[in-house]
């Protein structure tokens, strides 16, 4: 298991925090349970990549240092929005090793709002859920997205 918590307000997180206030990130329930000022990184094995609406979900099994296991659930965007962001239903399959970066749930449940994922083949997909829409007008005081916020490589089609 590799869980790194950080309270440092990363520039990306700052954008997402402001974006959450200004842009809808969820269709039918609120994103408020997630602490957007924090970022966690989790390495694990894909159990299920659910390509669905209103939100896609990624379930990852992580192995802790003591040998026990945990299942984490990461909420991602709607299928259409993910597809526009270069994601694909075939990006992940059970057994893939991935590293997920997410905003954790406030109550400490093993749930996160998926921001970035490094796939088994090394590709990185960004901002699966909280990304502001293309052409969005940044709220006053918003920090510009960090370099490389766009997906590092388009998914093969």
């Amino acid at each position: 298991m590799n869980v790194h918590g950080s309270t440092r307000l990363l520039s990306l997180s700052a954008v997402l925090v402001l974006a959450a206030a200004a842009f809808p990130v969820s269709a039918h329930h609120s994103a408020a349970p997630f602490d957007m000022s924090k970022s966690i990184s989790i390495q694990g094995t894909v159990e299920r990549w659910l390509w669905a609406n209103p939100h896609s979900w990624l379930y990852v099994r992580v192995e802790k240092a003591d040998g026990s296991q945990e299942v984490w659930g990461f909420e991602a965007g709607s299928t259409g929005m993910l597809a526009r962001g270069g994601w694909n239903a075939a990006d992940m399959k059970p057994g893939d090793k991935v590293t997920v970066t997410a905003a954790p749930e406030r109550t400490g449940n093993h749930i996160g709002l998926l921001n970035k994922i490094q796939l088994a083949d090394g590709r990185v997909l960004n901002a699966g859920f909280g990304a502001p829409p293309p052409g969005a007008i940044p709220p006053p005081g918003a920090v510009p997205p960090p370099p490389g916020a766009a997906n590092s490589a388009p998914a093969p089609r």
Partner: protein
Amino acid sequence: MIKQKFVLAIALYSAMLAASATAAEPLGSKWSDVTKLPDFFTGNWQSNTSFLDSSSNVPLTPQALAYIAQYKPVEDIPFAGPNCKTPGMPIIQRLGSPLKFFYEPGMIAIYIENSSMTRFIKLNGKHSARPNPTFLGESIGHFEGDTLVVDSVGFDDTLLQYGDLPGRGSGPFVLPPDAIFGPHGPNLRMVERIRLLDPDTLEDRLTIYDDTVWKGPYEANSGRTFKRNRGENGWPHEWVCNAAETLIYDPSQGKTIEEDPAEVLKRLQQKENH
């Protein structure tokens, strides 16, 4: 002399007929009109303004104030619910997925990707005598220059944002501004003015008329804007609510329950195995 009068009469009659024909066929009546309309149709439109209204100075009715006084902050956004029930107009157009416009003579349709719903706006027509209630309303549109003016009535149980209660929220799902949503009255009417601000920016200015909520016309924000997606990103996608297993909505508590992901995964895998 008689011949001249006859020619003049024919000319006048022709002119009257031509004027009559023009008046009978306002913009949006013919296929060829599509070349005269503002280009709402290329690609799709992604909302880039909040789905919540900013504070308004329009005074609320005593009925609405009484509703706010007894209002209990919600545990989730008020339109959360089982089976992804649509929030309807006006919220549904402002959520995270884009809008796609289509035209045929006498109609503009707007595909709302979020919920896979389509609004059908009848151009240059009249409202029904008794419109049945719907979540998008019965919409009649016409062009005033380059602005599409859409008048909608006949709403089902869609919600209106009465105002905000900053800081009163207590539940984990409460939205940042603690927005108060409440029911609409029987004569709810929405008027939208839709136009291009530039080739890639669409504005939708909405005025709401509901004498059970506001004492006058209520204009929500200064105008919501949408950015155009072109090319591959401008293509509409299907949106079907098919992830009901991942989130359980409890109507008795009025909130969404975040379960242990291990339990959700088990349920998903059991479903796959059957």
